[in-house]
């Protein structure tokens, strides 16, 4: 019996005003697998992710979540389904502290009041799981944090919840060597727990190290979605830069 994909998109179109960004895109993400989404700058990766997360819903196309067709109108809908997105532009509130950001929109309460202690404890343990050493205090304001630390907060925010699909838009872009390694480990662990993980990265080493499948966007077209073991480094680079490689990708 074939596995039901956690996420399946078919015939997705998306325009920003007069600019068409995604053309008839198909995309699947399976449970227990890391699907890498690659493509040049401006290929439409972030646009696809924003559609998946309900931030900017798609114009048309079919969206299946765990086999069932769904319609996402807002990020809240996506969160309710169990979709967590770490956005490329991190989307944190600088005037709030780390704990407040991690629980934003889904605060724990006791009666009317916030359960600050409970949230702080949960945030601390999640961050500890991410091996964050240099943050100092979980009560620091996000405005005081470095770019990499912010990225870690955004990541921690996504893994805090019991989700089915985690989408990471260049989560390691601002991270140091050790932190990148940790993010990749985390990505792998999430997939091993049975989640579907979508990872966007420009680093081919990372992509090959961690992914099970690679999906390539080229100028808004999905040119190939293949198993990582079936392609070489060079082929993927060709797909990214010219949209085809041998018999993969766009027809000649």
């Amino acid at each position, binding site marked *: 019996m074939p596995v039901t994909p956690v996420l399946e998109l078919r015939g997705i179109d998306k325009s920003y005003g007069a600019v068409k960004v995604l053309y008839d895109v198909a995309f699947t993400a399976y449970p227990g697998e890391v699907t890498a989404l690659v493509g040049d700058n401006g290929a439409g990766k972030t646009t696809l992710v924003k559609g998946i*997360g309900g*931030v900017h819903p798609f114009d048309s196309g079919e969206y299946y979540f765990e086999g069932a067709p769904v319609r996402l109108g*807002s*990020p*809240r809908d996506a*969160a309710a389904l169990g979709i967590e*997105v770490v*956005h490329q532009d*991190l*989307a*944190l*509130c*600088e*005037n*709030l502290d780390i704990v*407040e950001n991690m629980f*934003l*929109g*889904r*605060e724990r*309460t006791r009666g*009317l*009041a*916030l359960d*600050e*202690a409970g949230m*702080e*404890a949960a945030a*601390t343990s999640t*961050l*500890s*799981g*991410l*091996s*964050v*050493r240099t*943050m*100092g*205090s*979980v*009560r620091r*304001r996000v*405005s*005081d944090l470095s770019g990499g630390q912010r990225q870690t907060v955004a990541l921690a925010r996504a893994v805090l919840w019991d989700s089915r699909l985690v989408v990471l838009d260049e989560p390691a872009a601002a991270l140091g*060597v050790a932190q*990148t*390694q*940790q993010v*990749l*480990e985390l990505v*792998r*662990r999430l997939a*091993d727990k049975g989640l579907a993980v979508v990872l966007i990265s420009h*680093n081919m*080493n*990372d992509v090959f*190290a*961690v992914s*099970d499948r690679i999906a390539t966007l080229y100028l808004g077209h999905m040119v190939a979605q293949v198993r990582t073991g079936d392609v070489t480094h060079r082929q993927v680079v060709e797909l990214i830069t010219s949209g085809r490689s041998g018999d993969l990708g766009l027809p000649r």
Partner: protein
Amino acid sequence: MSTDIPKGGPSAVKLADSDFAADHRPSDLGGALRDYWAQVRSGDLGAVPAVLGIAGLVVLFTALRPETFLSDRNIANLFTQALPVTILAMGLVFVLLLGEIDLSAGVTSGVCACVMAKLMVSAGQPWYVAVLAALAAGVVIGTAIGWLVAVVRIPSFVVTLALFLGLQGITLWLVGEGGTVPVRDDVIVALANKNMPVALGWALAVVCAVGYAASQFWRWQRQSARGLAAKPVQLVALRVVAVAVVLLAGTYLLSQDRAPSPLITLAGIPWGVPLVAVLLIICTFVLGRTAYGRHVYAVGGNAEAARRAGVNVTRIRVSVFMIASTLAAVAGIVAASRLNSVTPSEGSGNTLLYAVGAAVIGGTSLFGGRGKARDAVLGGLVVAIIDNGLGLLGTKAYLNFLITGSVLLFAASIDALARRRRSATGR
């Protein structure tokens, strides 16, 4: 960089456990002071300017008018003078937290007061019906502003500027050209003109002080028991003592007999003061301890981030204008009580300027995302002291305008500089 991660198996690399050292280190007063100083240096001044302002102004006016300014009567006067502006400012704090503005809050208070007065005088309604109607009028006005700002997306300053004019028209129409509506109902008049029995005042002050201490220590105990980030206990104690001293000293001053003749006694806390205290407690709780309050700060800090986190940004936007206008209605009722009447110009003129000034002087940022309910109280006192002191000095009207305008500009500059300071230090 070569990464080799086993697929499908458990992670091979043992993850180092982290330490949030600062959260577990027993914090002391020195550390807290250093943290605070770092915060001030990076442009987050908190309540300091307002407290210094109050102290400085009290010294100044005492020096200039030694026999009148600090007299018991004038102090009671000062408190009632501060009531409407403080309540108005407290509502504006919510709007300012989103980086929006409500220029019509002052005239909203006028319209609502007018609705109340007309209902009592012309329709013979009891005070509670009239008050409820005034509050309802506030809710309606706030909803309209909120809808235009949050749904239609007209900039709030344009919407409320339009209402600033339009609502004055409504007040004028309700009151009638040149007329005033008298307010004679005992309950309403008592709000700003009658005092609590002295014993009740003391009881209330003690209850407030003990309640504040209990809530602070309880919170500290809960945090430190679970090994969470907590302020040093000495700092908590210091704050509790400071609040208690202010509460009891204020009560003492207002409990002195301030009657102009020895034949009668006039003492006690004006009824409007506990009203402000209740509003302060509610607003502080809502902003600091509820999910709603957290969302207000989040939308003010980064609306798009809040939206992506699942916050209903539109609803938050509408709600803050509703709160501001409703509190404006309360402010209008108190102002009508103080003046025993409603005039067509009620709430226009410098009412709004004073309220915005109060919020900003208290430490609320005009850029959104930063501010507290208590800012309205601290700033409201500053504004009332200036107004009261200039009155005692008998300054000319033109100077009054100039001075008050400058104070607002000064406070806004501190806010803007603090913001620049924050971005300079990467905050």
